């Protein structure tokens, strides 16, 4: 907080404590104990008796406690307190404790190769739970994905399925960028390329349009998707010859993809999950498509 506000808090807090203490001690002596104060409200009068000792000392102790507390803990504006307590620090302590307790559970699988790990039911249950916590929001609880989120159970791997490639995907995330071709191709061009892509995937195109589309494809698309349209894992460019569509395979959706491009982004999990956990997830993800 700003210095001004910090000062405001300090003055207000310490000032209040001072006022309480003054009020308390100034009212210790009473003028006429056992008699009324002299005022009367609707026939109700008040005795002028001293504060009970236990009440008085309880209050005084609580003021002292408050002072001690404000010296040790943060509370007076920007003053951090001599105890050095922070909630982040408390979180770190708890995380360290958790790592100490649960770390070995994950570490025991570190040196098991992923293919072997995929057959370990206990490890795969751990993988399923981690998947549900971290991955299922996008990829679905069974890993089947949805529009724009890859289906991990099919046989296509956009970025490759070797253990190293999967590790890179999980750690660092992926950024897939397909440029928008609307500026380079006019409506006819887009239509032609759409028909060619339909033909590539094994469906029935409008023949002459597809032939024109092939020309544009070889010129513009093959550089990422390959001359045969089989895709390129280095770029994350999908295989266009299978019938697996990340963004939908209807003519409308392919047109949309070509017109405006696509921008697929997967976050990296290296800051949240350590290598031991990522190793188990690696095996789990591979097991999802092996389960077919």
């Amino acid at each position, binding site marked *: 907080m700003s210095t001004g506000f910090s000062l405001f808090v300090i003055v207000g807090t310490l000032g209040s404590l001072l006022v309480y203490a003054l009020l308390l001690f100034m009212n210790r002596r009473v003028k006429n104990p056992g008699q009324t104060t002299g005022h009367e409200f609707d026939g109700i009068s008040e005795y002028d008796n001293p504060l009970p000792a236990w009440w008085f000392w309880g209050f005084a102790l609580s003021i002292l406690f408050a002072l001690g507390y404000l010296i040790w803990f943060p509370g007076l504006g920007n003053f951090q307190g001599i105890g050095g307590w922070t909630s982040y620090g408390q979180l770190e302590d708890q995380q360290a404790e958790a790592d100490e307790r649960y770390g070995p559970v994950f570490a025991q699988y570190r040196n098991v190769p992923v293919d072997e790990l995929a057959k370990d039911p206990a490890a795969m249950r751990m993988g399923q739970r981690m998947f549900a916590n971290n991955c299922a*929001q996008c990829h*679905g609880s*069974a890993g089947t994905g*949805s529009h724009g989120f890859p289906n991990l159970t099919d046989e296509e791997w956009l970025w490759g399925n070797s253990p190293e490639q999967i590790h890179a995907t999980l750690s660092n995330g992926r950024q897939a960028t397909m440029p928008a071709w609307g500026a380079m191709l006019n409506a006819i061009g887009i239509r032609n390329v759409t028909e060619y892509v339909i033909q590539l995937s094994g469906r029935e195109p409008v023949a002459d349009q597809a032939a024109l589309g092939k020309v544009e494809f070889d010129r513009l698309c093959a550089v990422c998707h390959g001359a045969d349209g089989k895709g390129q894992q280095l770029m994350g460019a999908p295989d266009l010859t299978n019938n697996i569509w990340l963004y939908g395979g209807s003519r409308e959706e392919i047109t949309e993809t070509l017109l405006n491009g696509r921008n697929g982004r997967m976050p990296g999990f290296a800051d949240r999950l350590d290598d031991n956990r990522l190793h188990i997830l690696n095996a789990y993800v591979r097991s999802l498509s092996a389960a077919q």
Partner: protein
Amino acid sequence: MQRIPAKEVIADDVDSKVFNLYEKREKIYTRHIEGFFQRVRLFTGWPLLLGYFLLPWINLDGRQAVLFDLPARKFHILWMTFWPQDFALLGWLLAIAAFALFFVTTLWGRVWCGYTCPQTVWTAIYMWAEQLAEGERLQRMKLDKQPSILSPKGWNRAGLEKTLRRLFKHGMWLGFAALTGFTFIGYFYGIRDLVMDAWHWQLPLMAMAWCIFFTLATYINAGWMREQVCIYMCPYARFQSAMFDRDTLVISYDAARGEQRGSRRRNSDYKAEGLGDCIDCTMCVQVCPTGIDIRNGLQYQCIGCAACVDACDDIMDKMGYARGLISYTTENKLAGGSWTWKRPKLIGYGAAMLVMATLFVIVLANRQQVSVEVMRDRASLFQQLSDGRIENAYQLRIINRDGMDHEFVVEVADLPGATLVPDRPVAVASGEIADLLLRVQISPENLQQANQNVMFRIVSVDSGRNGQPLRAEIENRFIAPASSVPANRNGSPAP
């Protein structure tokens, strides 16, 4: 603003005495008595005591037969296991217990208090221990008056006996309290584990703390508080008057027969002197554990232990009079009438109790030992496979509450032509909740509509305890794109 005139009102006929609502406790020295009803208490008290102490030691199916496993949220009672989902049954059971209590109270008065209540049973044992250590009533009164071992003048030899007797008594009290407390925790921790861990000083802090708590609570309740619990703490004493009627069995002093009370010479014609059967020996007051005089009539402190009945009958025998001056009787009978069961309250409570108990048994016997839940992912409606088939993904949660492991076959009804991935039976251990990721795939030709109801069924491969396979089912939906459904396409080709 007008002042509202206030008038000070003091009733004329009330003297301004100060009423002190706090009544200082006077120690009761209960006289020991033997008799018919005290023997009845042996038959009601001992089975309950033995049941309480011995039940945790019985093992069944490899585990403790009666175990309330709080961390695992499983409550084992003999061959049955209850999960938190069965909590409604506990509510029913309590309702049945309540109606049974009201029924028995309307019928027989406070028989629960006098013969079966743990407070009475434990207090009786503690009183026996006190008698063993400190002697009979008069001896105890004398012992209390003796000075302590440390007087202001210094070491006092005579107080040694008092101290030793007291130590003996409190030692027995604490020992029995410890047994009680540890047994109670044994119902939750596992009595064998508890004894082993306690013996090896391996007991966790919380377990040890609870054992000590219940030990102290037993010691204080049965040793120090005794009748204070019955008089001040227990609500039963206070609402008994709501359930009693003129035909309820209560312990009563037959005033018509007993008054005028007074002492007399043996074999004298007391009736001619205007005296009744009561010789005012005050035995009925001396034996009362709550310290009341039953001759004053029905009081809320009377726990119905019938010590006064046994005492007075004893005296009547000695005097040669008929028994029953103090007896179990009803107000109607005392007034010269007879007992009847045709009372709306009694019939009502009895009927309610029977109906609820019957329903409870039926529900208990028909409990399903397996259940299934299904969850769809929120975001994804369907997925199109490369061969054109439509796929929906679900998370099935199979809960096996049975005592045995089972394998379950998963089926999808109302969706002909669908295939399941995985298609093999899933093993679920006893007490386990299994998460099954299920994918249902169907060719578009087989689709009837875009959004249709499907039923997930699980059937166990083997049969359960009653010879039938366990089954459960749950409904959900299968969603496909509208353009894939043949009925929607009206002849146009699939996209």
